[in-house]
């Protein structure tokens, strides 16, 4: 059994943007993919997925169209806008900087303890 950790504040938006960047996708698929990709390490609260999607749509980072799925049902497909792509790049870069910095700090304190 893996230990699940909660998603840090603000990273849900980043993850959503990243998933949607791969191509138009509906909400359920986003939830599925987040779960698969994170290999159940990160607990994505399904309840906050939709409000987040709507918020991103309102901010103009996502756009949505109603399209048919392979099963023939109509679903709301989200895709990244140009503004959304820029935002994704910005946030991904800053995330990387942050994790690198945090990693460095953690290593340093380990070394200090020896």
């Amino acid at each position, binding site marked *: 059994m893996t230990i699940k950790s909660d998603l840090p504040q603000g990273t849900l938006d980043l993850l959503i943007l990243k998933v949607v960047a791969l191509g138009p996708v509906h909400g359920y698929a986003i939830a599925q993919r987040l779960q698969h990709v994170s290999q159940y390490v990160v607990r994505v609260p399904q*309840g906050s997925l*939709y*409000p987040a999607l709507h918020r991103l749509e*309102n901010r103009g980072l996502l756009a949505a169209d109603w399209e048919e799925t392979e099963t023939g049902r109509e*679903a*709301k497909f989200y895709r990244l806008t140009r503004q959304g792509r820029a935002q994704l790049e910005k946030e991904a870069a800053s995330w990387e900087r942050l994790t690198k910095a945090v990693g460095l700090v953690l290593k340093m304190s380990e070394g200090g303890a020896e």
Partner: protein
Amino acid sequence: MTWWHRLWRQRQLEEQLDKEVRFHLDQHAADLVARGYDPQDARRQALLALGGSEQVKEECRDARGTRWLEDLAQDLRYAIRTLRQRPGFAAVAIVTLALGIGGTTVMFTVINGVLLRPLHFPGPDRLLTLNEQTKGITDYRWGDLWAYSYPNYLDCKQESRTLDMAAWRYNGGTVSAPGAAEHVDGVEMSSELFPILGLSVARGRTFSPEDDRPGAAPVAIISHGLWQRQYGGSPAAIGRPMVFEGQSYTVIGIAPPGLRLAFDADVFTPIGRNTSAFMLRRDSHPGIDVWARLKPGVTPSEAQTELAVIGRRLAAQYPKTNAGRGFLARPLRQELVVEQVGDDRGKLWLLLGAVSLVLLIACVNVASLLLARAISRQRELAMRVALGASRGRLARQCLTESALLGLAGGLLGVWIATLGSRPFVALWPGGLARAAEVQLDWHVLLFALGVSLLCGLLFGLAPALRAPTRDLEQILRAGVRTLAGSSRRLHSGFVVSEIALAVVLLVSAGLLGQTLLRLSSLNPGIDIRNLLVTRAALAPSILANPARIPSAWQELLDRLRRVPGVQSASMVDTVPMREGNNQIGYWTNAAVPEKHQMPLALSSSVTPDFLNVMGIALREGRFFDDHDRMGSKPVIVIDEVMAQHAFGNQDPIGKHLWIPDMPCIGPKGETFYDCTEPYEVVGVVGHVRYWGLAGDDQARVRDQFYYPFAQVPDHFLPRWSELMSIVVRTRIPPLDLLVSLRREARGAAGDQVLYQVNTMEQLAGKSLAEQRFLLLLFGLFAGLALLLACIGIYGVLAYITSRRVPEIGVRMAFGASARDVVRMVLRQSLVMIIAGVAVGVAAALVAARLLEHQVEGVRSVEPWTFAIMICVLVAAALFASFLPARRASRVDPMRALREE
């Protein structure tokens, strides 16, 4: 998608949200079933994973960012529903507010049009008015500013690189062909005037520079109105002749309807053709108006600097006339708005202030009504707080309700303003300058909206702040019939302020009434009954030949005297209580000082009948007779005020006065204003209230003297004849004789007209018109305030006593009589009334001061005015409180106690 868009498509968004969530759940459940779950279990699992479909939806709605709007819509629906539950309350509140807001909006519409709107010319900010400015010499009225002389204008215009300049002057006269003869107002103007102002003609053409020079063929532009009257609106009028002041002009253009410069004129002619001697003088000239437009890219201060340079150069070139004389450019707005509107400005703001008081009373009234309702709704509100509504949310809802009331009142108020502004302007005594600018525009709408919302906030605040938060349990458990001390104090506060505001308006109205009573009982100094006053224009052919003028006037007077019903007739140049006057300085010995150091007197040239026709009292000596003529010693008659000023207690008869500005033949011949020979005082007559019944006491120049028209030298006669009026004393109501008088005056060529016809009674009435108009308005406002205050007192007392029914029941059970109860309630209301009166009297004294400054003839308020107005108020207020008091006294003690 904008928030507005989202709100608009709310329904569609809701459907989509539902569909999206449903799709998620179905898909998840299907996946679980595929993995071997039982379908029902799968559905439950999916729902659990999502965390409840309704909760998710609600969070999505929040994410939309239109939450506050949805709340607002909900509040509005709620407010409309609660207002519709009590239509009586809503109607009273809305009508009350509509009266207040409507009145304020009417006043603002007028102020906006008259004072705030830009000039009615394109590019109004770049228009300037130019004056000559002197150092040291000041005139009492215009200070150191003077009208331009024509040569100075020509020099400035030629040398200026910063300004496009144009000149004009008033030039009224008689149009005698092609239609019936009529006297019209006219303007002599330079050809640049229309282009500078951005004006054009509706038909034909404007003046070219070729029309505007000496010796050019006479051409004229006529107004739309004159075109209709003289040519029946025929397009063929262009190129046709028109006879104006005895000269034939070719009509070249017709002005668009409503065209006006500083006043409405009917005939426009080029000023450059005028070669009269006085036009060419730099001193003692009639004066012209100079208007200018800044050339592109030039600032006003650059133009002013240039004018100063030109002024210095002209002073060096013409030291005799131009030393110490410069030129000043001011915004044209200054002349057309500030100076033309003049004293009316203060009155307009005063009226806005007065009507704002009415609005304030209306607000207080509605506030107390709303508060009473809020208190009876306390349980409902407490219930909603208990169910989770925040205090802010409740306050917002209360404010929504009052804002809705305010806006409804405002809407009705704007409607009142659209109906009321025009009649208001039309009724303004003596006509309001820039009246044509008074119209509803977006400034007015914005004002009305602002006032409505402000009112809503003002009267909604108290109930909103009272939304309960603490002691919910107690409120919910307690009976409805409790009234906290704080709200009773608030209610009393409302009544006190209403009474105080009403006192201010009542005392102001009383003060104006007192003034009007006093003024109407004043003796004008003349017998105003059966007296007709009219200006008369001699035939232009006669004016061209000064030697014929005296006999022409004599003949005209004789013809008028022969009309049956006419008792006597006389000539005079300036008529009391009508616009226009002639003020000149005098001195009591030959060592005459500088012009501006002499005392001023009003001078009138008259014929010997004048005293009898007007009914002025002869105090001493004699009036003129036929022996006072050209060549006999120059004589004058002074009034008692001037006698006192000039000679104190000495006997004025036989004394001499030096009056250099009189029309006479001086040592250098027939020049202007250079009399060295003194005038002998032969009589003293009663003072005439020349400046009107109201204005005369405070007028700056009250000295009056008369001189014989027969002693005016020929040289001056054409000019004097333009100014002459005729006064006719009749045996029957004077206007009945008008037709026959006009017919007799016509003359041989049918081109002599009587114009500006008034009876002396009309003129005397007009001199009080302003006071009467203000009294009417203040009376209206005061009446409205009284009514509103009474409704307010009634409402508050009815409310307070209804809350006190159990207490009253107890009192009656313990033996209080109905009379005791009435007395108790009345005592309570009397305390509030007296407090209100005390505050109001203090404020009223301030208001009275304002009126004293703004309105002619108002003196300090008399005690009996205060007494009467306060009695009226207290009586009305007590009457309003009597009804709830009586109802309280009829309380059945048993039932009251059982209700508790």
